[in-house]
């Protein structure tokens, strides 16, 4: 418990924490801007254009921003200690070592959950408010039907926070850990999208971006990912993303010279 309060103090006494959190939450403003622009375009469009007009689910597009930010926050909580050498003090104070990593994960995970829910639900409600019944699709379906997907989307943010912490501990360099997170969010899905079938869909189904819709069974054909996993399997893959790298990191941190 004392480790937890100590780690919490470390996180909230750093300026970078607030910058990253601010950046993550700015996704709500980006979503608002996109919704306002889209509404304006819809209103000036002809009737024929309107009937064909589609808009992506903005919260699904913009969740990438908090995903990236919280992944980086997770990485920074540990790599900044390696840069400054504070890690040696931290590990000396808690010789078992694993509580340090566990406490960090718990804190960035909880922050990720809050930030994820705020951005996803914030973007959803604001977009719904702004767009009303303009575009057929996402924002015209009742909230209850959308709730499972919104929850699953929110959950991907803490998963990234945990991934960031794990890769931060594994790689010990901010640049390296951030590169891995960016690779996971952007580069790998981009490349997988270009692979010929059937592997594009098979691998795409395993991407974190694909999991929310697989978990809720709310699949769409236009997805850039795949949708082959059952809800239970997708949930298990999500848990694996959150835990396996952390387990590897804990094992390594305990074994390696600090």
């Amino acid at each position, binding site marked *: 418990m004392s480790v937890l309060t100590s780690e919490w103090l470390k996180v909230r006494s750093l300026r*970078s924490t607030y*910058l990253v959190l601010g*950046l993550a939450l700015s996704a709500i403003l*980006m979503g608002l801007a*996109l919704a306002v*622009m*889209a509404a304006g*375009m*819809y209103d000036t469009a002809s009737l024929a254009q309107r009937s064909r*007009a*589609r*808009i*992506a689910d*903005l919260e699904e*597009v*913009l969740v*990438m*921003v908090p995903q*990236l*930010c919280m992944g*980086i926050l997770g*990485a*920074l909580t540990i790599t900044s200690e390696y*840069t400054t050498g504070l890690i040696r003090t931290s590990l000396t104070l808690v010789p078992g070592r694993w509580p340090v990593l566990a406490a960090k994960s718990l804190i960035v995970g909880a922050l990720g959950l809050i930030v994820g829910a705020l951005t996803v639900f914030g973007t959803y409600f604001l977009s719904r408010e702004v767009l009303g019944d303009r575009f057929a699709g996402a924002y015209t379906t009742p909230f209850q039907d959308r709730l499972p997907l919104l929850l699953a989307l929110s959950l991907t943010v803490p998963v990234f926070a945990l991934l960031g912490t794990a890769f931060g501990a594994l790689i010990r*360099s*901010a*640049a*390296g850990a*951030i*590169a891995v997170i*960016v*690779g996971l*969010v*952007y*580069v790998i899905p*981009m*490349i997988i999208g*270009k*692979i*010929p079938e059937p*592997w594009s869909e098979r691998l795409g189904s395993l991407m974190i971006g694909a999991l929310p819709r697989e978990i809720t069974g709310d699949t769409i054909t236009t997805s850039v990912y795949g949708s082959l996993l059952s809800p239970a399997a997708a949930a298990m893959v999500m848990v694996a993303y959150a835990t396996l790298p952390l387990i590897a990191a804990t094992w390594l941190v305990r074994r390696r010279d600090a």
Partner: protein
Amino acid sequence: MKAVLSSEWVKLRSVASTFHTIGAAAAMVVLGIAWTVYVGALADERGMLRAAAPEEGFLPLVQMSLAVLGVLTITSEHATGMIRTSLVTVPRRSTLFLAKAGIVALATLATAMSVLLLTYVTSRLIAGERHLGFNESAFTNDLPMLLASGLSVTALALVGLGLGAAMRSTAGALVSVVSLLFVLPGVINYLPPPWNTRIAALLLPNLVPQIASERMSSRLGDGYLPPWAALAVLFAYPLITLTIGYYALKRKDA
């Protein structure tokens, strides 16, 4: 200037991170080979198919890896305090910064072009006579795209250097580079047409096909900019960010 360039060259080649980032960029060659073997096998089954060219598909990997190199050239000096020693030996900050930019430009252009050409050549050799879509045009037709891709990598690395100098933080500069390369284009993609195409035409990753006068993507369609204008915009990115970075280095106490 020559002396400072030579010093920056020593700095670059004497840290492991340089080789990690270049190694990550060079992974494109291996991925390109694996890719071609895979789509080649598919083509043997199906007769023919249209696959993306590996040097285009894996370009974001090279862009990102070498942008990290650009960022680290300056932020690692700020992180370690080495920047103060560097400025004591080269008190003219413009000289130091120009030398850094020069070395980053040379190193990334050389790396990117070698990796791109190697990927191009190996994939075409492996593809042979198969009909894979990407291997059916002449080298002279593909050359503009290869050159534009190489230039985009250098532009992005210099953007990383500029932002690194402005922010003095590895994480901050990397996040900004990622925003330019991935987040912004991703978000703009989802604007209703034709606005997505108009705005996207100005974004870094979409400049490459426009310079080579090719289609931006299936979603975005043809570009808006003629090749010379796209090239000008590509140069504007590093020019603006390097200027911002230079003023930050010049004005602030080290």
